[in-house]
């Protein structure tokens, strides 16, 4: 094996991987590397440092000098080993196709790319970063932040061909890091505002995501500004960026076409694409309804919106919720009804971020219809729950059963209570047991004395008959 390859190498003139010369190796396989305190040369950010940040900004092309790396403040070799230092990483990019909306997507790559460096660990993002350089990496020659800048610049340019120019400035001077901090905060807040206020009607195209088709071949996600992918990891901005970078990748645009129903979120363009993608199995989907042609679900959704018929309301449960929800079912058991790329009215796989969307299940009543949410999730999205409804939504702390939930909703005057009046007259039909014919009948000996008349009333005559059933299966008829 080795010989054969060497022969090839000689012919091709390539004996190993040619790559830009860096003092340490750089590759995807280092991503999971953890650097423990005893192995650490020094660290930036983390718990011991008050201000730290990383920021990606787009600039006009003429303002940037491509490949320029600047360090403002002391460099690695000038710092005392073992210490914790402030840091600010500013990545400025330019290119004809580099839109401002790409900034967030590019910024999250600082985390991945820094982690690709052997001997460097990066955690978290934005104002919460924590970077460790290992002793080994320092000894190997990673003794200047310029290297990190160079590596980042190289990785950005090789993974995003749309970036024509890149300039990286790393601040380690405390005063400077603090001075620029408000600018960074301001940028993020504007970016978040845009992400949260951008509405489906304001864009021309949505995106599909076919990433998880590798495991759930019949599912396709439709991603819009108001509806993030069910896994919570692919937003409209991410999908758009991914498409711009690789038009043959898993995300591609869906021209919206005519809006057939603005409340349910039915678009001609979406229907066309899902029909095509599902090979005709799915005809239409409503983006904002879990009852009427709901969006299908993959396998990796973060949570489930589930209908609770007893109170005509909607419950929410997330993947990490332990034990039974208010309807007596666990996440896993409901997930079984939800997944697999089929439309399952009453069960909808969702991303937690979707709970913050202004169009969250709007056709079904949105938050006004939500009656039960795990306390952890309620806390996480509390800013997005309408004030007047907040105290009316129960969690597992208040209600563990449907009975308790009914009482709770009544006492808090939840809007769903007004829907009950009509319903209360109805009675739930009792389940009936239907006995089926034996599935396995062996051996059946019916040789003698059987007469089944063909006309008139039936009269059965059985003589010396032995019927043996290995097993009789009784199935309940679905009500």
């Amino acid at each position: 094996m080795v010989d054969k390859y060497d022969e090839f190498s000689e012919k091709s003139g390539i004996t190993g991987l040619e790559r830009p010369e860096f003092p340490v190796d750089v590759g995807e396989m280092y991503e999971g590397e953890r650097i423990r305190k005893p192995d650490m040369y020094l660290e930036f950010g983390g718990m011991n440092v008050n201000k730290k940040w990383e920021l990606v900004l787009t600039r006009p092309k003429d303002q940037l000098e491509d490949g320029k790396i600047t360090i403002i403040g002391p460099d690695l070799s000038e710092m005392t080993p073992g210490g914790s230092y402030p840091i600010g990483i500013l990545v400025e990019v330019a290119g004809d196709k580099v839109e401002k909306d790409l900034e967030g997507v590019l910024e999250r790559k600082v985390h991945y790319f820094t982690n690709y460096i052997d001997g460097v660990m990066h955690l978290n993002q934005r104002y919460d970063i924590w970077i460790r350089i290992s002793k080994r990496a320092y000894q190997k020659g990673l003794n200047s932040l310029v290297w990190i800048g160079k590596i980042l610049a190289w990785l950005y340019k090789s993974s995003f061909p749309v970036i024509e120019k890149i300039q990286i400035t790393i601040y380690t001077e405390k005063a400077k890091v603090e001075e620029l901090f408000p600018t960074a905060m301001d940028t993020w807040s504007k970016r978040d505002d845009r992400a949260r206020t951008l509405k489906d009607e304001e864009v021309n195209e949505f995106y599909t995501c076919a990433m998880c088709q590798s495991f759930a071949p019949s599912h396709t996600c439709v991603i819009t500004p108001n509806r993030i992918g069910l896994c919570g990891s692919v937003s409209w901005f991410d999908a758009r960026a991914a498409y711009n970078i690789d038009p043959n990748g898993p995300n591609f645009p869906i021209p919206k076409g005519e809006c057939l129903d603005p409340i349910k979120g039915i678009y001609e363009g979406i229907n066309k694409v899902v029909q095509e993608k599902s090979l005709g199995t799915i005809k239409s989907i409503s983006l904002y309804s879990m009852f009427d042609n709901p969006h299908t679900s993959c396998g990796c959704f973060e949570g489930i919106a589930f209908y609770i018929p007893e109170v005509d309301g909607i419950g929410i449960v997330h993947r990490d919720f332990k034990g039974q929800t208010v309807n007596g079912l666990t996440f896993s058991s409901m997930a079984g009804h939800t997944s697999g790329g089929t439309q399952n009215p009453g069960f909808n796989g969702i991303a937690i971020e979707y709970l913050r969307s202004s169009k969250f299940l709007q056709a079904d009543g949105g938050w006004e219809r939500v009656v039960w949410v795990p306390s952890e999730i309620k806390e996480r999205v509390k800013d997005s729950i309408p004030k007047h409804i907040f105290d009316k939504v129960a969690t597992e702390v208040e209600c563990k059963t449907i009975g308790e939930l009914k009482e709770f909703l009544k006492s808090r005057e939840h809007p769903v209570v007004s829907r009950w009046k009509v319903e209360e007259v109805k009675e739930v039909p009792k389940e009936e047991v239907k006995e089926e014919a034996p599935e396995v009948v062996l051996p059946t000996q019916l040789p003698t004395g059987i007469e089944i008349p063909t006309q008139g009333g039936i009269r059965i005559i059985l003589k010396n008959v032995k019927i043996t059933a290995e097993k009789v299966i009784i199935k309940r008829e679905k009500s």
Partner: protein
Amino acid sequence: MTTKLSINELESSFAKIKGLELLIGKIVEEEWDEIVGPTPYPSITDLRTWDHRLLQRYEPFYSPLCDMCCLCTFGKCDLTKGKKGSCGIDIRSQQGKIVLIACLMGAACHATHARHIVNYLIEKKGRDYPIHLGEEIELEAPLIRLVAGIKPKKLGDLEEVLDYIERQITHLLSATATGQEESYIDFESKALHAGMVDNVALEVADIAQISALRFPKGDPDAPLVDLGMGVIDKTKPVILCVGHNVAPGSEVINYLEKSGIYGSVEVAGICCTAHDLTRYSTGAKIVGPLSRQLIFVRSGVADVIILDQECIRTDIIDEAKKVGTRVITTIDQVCAGLPDMTKSPIESIIKELVSGSVPAVLIHDPAKAGEVAVKVALEIAPNRRARIVSDEQEVLDAILRCKDCGRCRRNCPIDLPINEAVYASHEKNFDLLAEIYNQCLLCGRCESECPEHIPIVSAIRVAAMEKIRNEKYKIRSGRGPIKDTEIRKVGRPIVMGEIPGVIAFVGCANYPNGNKELVEMADEFAKRRYIVVASGCAAMDIARYKDEDGQTLYEKYAGDFDAGCILNTGSCVSNAHIIGAAVKIANIFANRKLRGNFEEIADYILNRIGAVAIAWGAQHQKAASIATGANRLGIPVILGPQGVKYRRAYLGRADKKENWIVYNARTGEKVYAGPAPEHLLYVTESKEEAIVTAARLVMRPNDTNKGRMIKLSHYIDLHQKLYGILPEDLHLFVRTEADLPLTMKDQLLKMLKKRGWEPMELPDPTLLERQIIRRE
């Protein structure tokens, strides 16, 4: 159980009935509305088409240990050079037959184990005792659902599954008799069938005991428990359980608890029964894997040994007698020529054992065996010192007889330089012998061969005494199944290329260079954020090494089914959960129906789930049957060097493009999807080869670009680090430019183009024509 209705004579306007007898074997109320798939309770031939499809791609490769067939009185028959035996058999079919027999031995062991434990638990808890694996496990029995097509709700439901398994084993075994099956491919198909029923038996056994015996239920934080030869407190009476069936050992604990003296008696185990004892009670201790048997028993530390079933050395009773340890055998598979005292009064059994007039007995009743063991241990422990005459001087004297003839080394399964070490100790240099201990399988073959009758294993023990005393490790107690929610959670990162694959360390302790290499492999993959799982003796041996911080891998990594974690599922029978996890993925992500739907699920796993098992020290026939079952489901298994003695591998031919054609389910077209996974059963010769092979075999045709990118980056990196060069077959695994790791893209592309590489399609891959989606 049978319901019977007889009508002698009935005359009515509706019917005239005479002598009607209606017999109903079982009435089941079924709430499972999943449609029954094509093959519930498959017969030997029901999945034959699938087997042949697999075997066409992964052709059996035989490495006979012996060229003769000695199975009937016509023989011995020489089968070399294309010769046929007197029954007409050729060497390939004869090897296929031997492989089938080995798989049947394994499957029969697990089936028996499952039957014993289910019977025991039914007797204790009743047939209606519920199967319940905790709130987060809805999919309680993926393999039973898949193969049997039932959803077991109660212990009693498992009996019909066992009936099925036992029937299959009988039918398969009959095919190995002279004058039955003749085709090697069909022997292999039958071996795959044996492997499949083996896997179901594992699941039956483990879900029964998890449900009924307070074991952890898929708990990632299952407690850390003690492991090692040095963890046993010798000041207390010691009861040692050896084997796989936890029933008698758990009864020891029950009796100690009932008498209020649990804690003042050491309950320890060797091999899988040890795993299950710690799952039952965290106070129990694990001495180690099966390789520790001889050396630990010779130490005489155990006062009483309870033997149950499987992986028990057949000389254990003789060895125990030499050091005055009393032995109780408990399961009918191991009667060992002992008097059956099951029905004798407890006090008389105790009397005989304590006095030593009968040093070893057979007691077929776990509770009784448990009580006897405790009472005898309490009685004889105080005299342990008097009982064990130190053999140290005797050993040192014996060593001097060594003439350095080298027969020990020649007879060593892994060629350790024993003679050099023994000879060196003539000069009071015991370092080499102590060094041998690190790698030694402690099988004792050298001793049997020694013309001077030097007790070499004892010599190794004496030389390594200090090491042995300090063998104190922590292992996370076997957690059992993977939770449904954990499966969901890892879906996204696998798709997004953040988790490169699942690597399972399984099998026995027949390592070429000691357990350290196994630890290094597990560490390597966990560090690279693969999901690492372990079971059985491999799980124990992963714990038998501490890093520079004094931690074992179980302390270093979390026990979740997630990137960069290492989890211990438990004993051999807990392998069901590793295989079951792959089945769960198909159901949980794609909503593929499991019920009696083996072929579709196997096709899904083969084409989509990047899981690989490494059985680095596989030794037993059970390991063969477990692996063969995993293979039928499309999960590749890598064996260590000793695995070649299983005589058969399933090798793919990457050079034959036509072997790697799949259907694109979305279009129905036949497309080349690349050699992934390249092999189903593969023997590696070194740790390095095993690591690189595993990194290669996690690739699947359905990988997303990001998923393939991360898999390739590890494959390339490991290959470069361990072999110093790029993998020669790299171009076979790059489908489009987007597969290429970012950090090497330009360079690799140049290389690929020189090799005439061209991009290919990423299909929705399947080998089954019926999986092609029909447009509505």
